[in-house]
């Protein structure tokens, strides 16, 4: 696929690298001369100019792009770029600068297909690093839904059971399973859970503690009215 990325800073350039690694065609748009030079030295096709201007995005051939990522730290420029991108038929991705704005742009910005708040993902990674251990939050799917990657430990109550036998709390789905030394795959009912195996689980925030208790066996603080 072909992408136009506005902003060759820490978010835009990194995104461009990931896309290139997956063999996609990326054109960067950047107005800062030093950043332009850096991205070109990195082998990228870069259009120098302000990505909130139509003639600049036309120079980046926005009309033939499948999607446009407006990933600068300037919200106004990002929004303008999305409006132009939408006009040219692109899918548009807007980087926001404050998390409360996610709701506003989802609801009102018809020119924007997806919203990215990089700090949210950064916080998840930092939290995982701080907590360490056998439970990792992979993504917040929605405000109340999280995908967790859980490693079966010696203390896991479910260790030794098959997937069929494990009764997960309501509002939870088992998404994927991987033996200790194998890649993740679709879980089968008779897969047995041994130490070091991993399961990916989609869970509602309300039942996260139950999931943790069942799969990891950590003691969790008693909730008011709990048993």
């Amino acid at each position: 696929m072909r992408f136009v990325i506005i902003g060759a800073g820490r978010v835009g350039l990194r995104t461009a690298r990931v896309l290139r690694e997956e063999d996609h065609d990326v054109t960067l748009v950047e107005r800062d001369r030093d950043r332009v030079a850096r991205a070109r030295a990195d082998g990228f096709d870069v259009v120098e100019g302000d990505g909130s201007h139509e003639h600049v995005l036309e120079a980046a051939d926005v009309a033939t792009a499948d999607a446009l990522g407006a990933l600068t730290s300037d919200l106004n420029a990002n929004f303008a770029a999305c409006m132009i991108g939408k006009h040219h038929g692109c899918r548009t991705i807007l980087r926001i600068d404050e998390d409360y704005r996610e709701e506003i742009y989802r609801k009102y910005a018809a020119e924007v297909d997806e919203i990215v708040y990089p700090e949210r993902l950064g916080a998840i990674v930092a939290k995982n690093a701080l907590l360490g251990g056998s439970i990792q939050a992979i993504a917040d799917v929605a405000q109340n839904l999280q995908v967790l990657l859980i490693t079966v430990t010696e203390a896991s109550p479910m260790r030794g059971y098959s997937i069929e036998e494990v009764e997960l709390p309501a509002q939870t789905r088992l998404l994927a399973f991987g033996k200790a030394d194998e890649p993740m795959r679709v879980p089968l009912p008779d897969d047995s859970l041994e130490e070091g195996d991993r399961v990916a689980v989609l869970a509602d925030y309300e039942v996260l503690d139950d999931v943790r208790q069942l799969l990891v066996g950590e003691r969790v603080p008693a909730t008011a009215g709990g048993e």
Partner: protein
Amino acid sequence: MVVAYIMVKANTGEADRLKGDISAIDGVTRAHIVAGDFDLVARVEADTTAEIKDIVATNLQSIAGVEDTQTYIAMD
């Protein structure tokens, strides 16, 4: 009569509620949710600039979820 445009920076995603609360203020003739560094723009009408200041400082800024405002007095 004095007309002013007030740029409102929010700190909440409840844009609808903010728009409703701002629109309900005496003197506010229009309010829009906008994209960019500010989240809403309100148009205010009053007899004097002192009244505009009162409307903004007393009523608008006391709404929960309003973080900051900037007032532009129309000159034409």
